[in-house]
């Protein structure tokens, strides 16, 4: 099967590779860009661990082929903090509220919440729960994650 050239702007930097069309964006990020912060849990769209921003929107990178992202901009968990390393409000809230346990699901939660709170600055508790429902945590540490989401929402809302 013919391979194709793809160029994806990842965290502000153009990444070009020749890939098989069946390569997912998640595998492109991990294997070709060596950005292993994007985690793969189920690889068929259920767990949400691989969530990245594709042209600003939160998507499951295991359900996008790299060839579909040709010419697009992607932000991974590695691109969420400030360039000087200062944690984003969502990241800081996860640390403050014990929203991290084993850490495996964390990149997906942080990226999903970053997009959600950008679009919904003042969510209710129920809306936060619904927004997080597409991400699974096998440690079942959801209470800390919810608390982190509330703190990040309050902080982002206050800054707006």
């Amino acid at each position, binding site marked *: *099967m*013919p391979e*194709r050239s793809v160029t994806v702007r990842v965290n502000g930097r153009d990444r070009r590779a020749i890939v*098989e*069309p*069946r*390569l*997912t964006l998640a*595998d492109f990020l991990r294997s070709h860009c060596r950005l292993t912060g994007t985690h793969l849990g189920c*690889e*068929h*769209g259920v767990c*949400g661990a691989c*969530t990245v921003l*594709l042209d600003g*929107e*939160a*998507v*499951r990178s*295991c*359900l*996008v*082929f790299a*060839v*579909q992202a040709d010419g697009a901009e992607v932000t991974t968990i590695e691109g969420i903090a400030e360039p000087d390393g200062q944690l984003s409000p969502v990241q800081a809230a996860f640390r403050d509220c014990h929203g991290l346990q084993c850490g495996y699901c964390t990149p997906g939660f942080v990226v*999903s919440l970053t997009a*959600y709170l950008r679009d919904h600055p003042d969510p209710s508790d129920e809306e936060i729960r*619904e*927004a997080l*429902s*597409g991400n699974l945590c096998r440690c079942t540490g959801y209470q800390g994650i919810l608390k982190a989401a509330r703190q990040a929402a309050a902080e982002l809302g206050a800054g707006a």
Partner: protein
Amino acid sequence: MKPAPFEYHRPETIEEAVALLGELGDAAKVLAGGQSLIPMLALRLTAFDHLVDIGAIAELTGIERRDGQIWIGAGTRFASVEASPDAAAGVPLLTRATRLIGHFQIRNRGTAGGSLAHADPAAEYPAVALALGAGLHVRSPRSERTVAAADFFEGLWTTSMEPDELLVAVSFPSWSGRCGFAVEEFARRHGDFAIAGAALGVQLDARGRVTRCAIGLLGLGATPERAGRAEESVVGRAAGEIDAEEIGRLAMAELESVPADLHGSAQYRKRVGAAMVARAWATAVTEAADA
């Protein structure tokens, strides 16, 4: 890499896309948002030699009012439908159904046309299209035609489209007057496919009599189902005198091939389905009466 190898095509016009489908026939599958197809490829439930990605075809996206209908391009993402004031005003049932699809990350990628063409009997859009009598606009290198939703869904994941045909748009008729709409579904976990559900619209006259009723069922057959007898049974009657549970029972009485699996027996699904119809009826009638 989990999916079997395939050759990738990325046409930029509908013409190019249908020419490719005409040339490749059965060996090709259309890739829209990929939120159903890519998991199926990853699990190797299916494989194709060619994928024709319609994601770069600009003329396939958009939401417009056209002659009392809401026209939605097949490539329009669920998130765009969810946020569209035109869709909310013209087909409230669709807007409400959209919020129940997967999770917001899935709705950022999944498309209206993809859901309809995939024709999963437990999905929301096929049931809404069937209930409202939507028109599905289909193009091939040979012709262009509009298929009524009632003639579109043929079986599990099967539509009446030929291999060289592409779904380009769907139009939903807008209801006017005193109308109410509701979607009710029951799933084990939020965002899962529903075990059973109902999408229901009702229209009342000034005296509170039912002038129109549409009931689409999901998860209760090999295709989405329409509860025609239950609909007919309420038309002309005073809405306040109708027993919601009776409509639920009647809607289930017509079903012939209710699926059974590890999530529930056919009998259980029917009981859930009847409850969902009853709930949707109650909500929709209250909304219509207040309109």
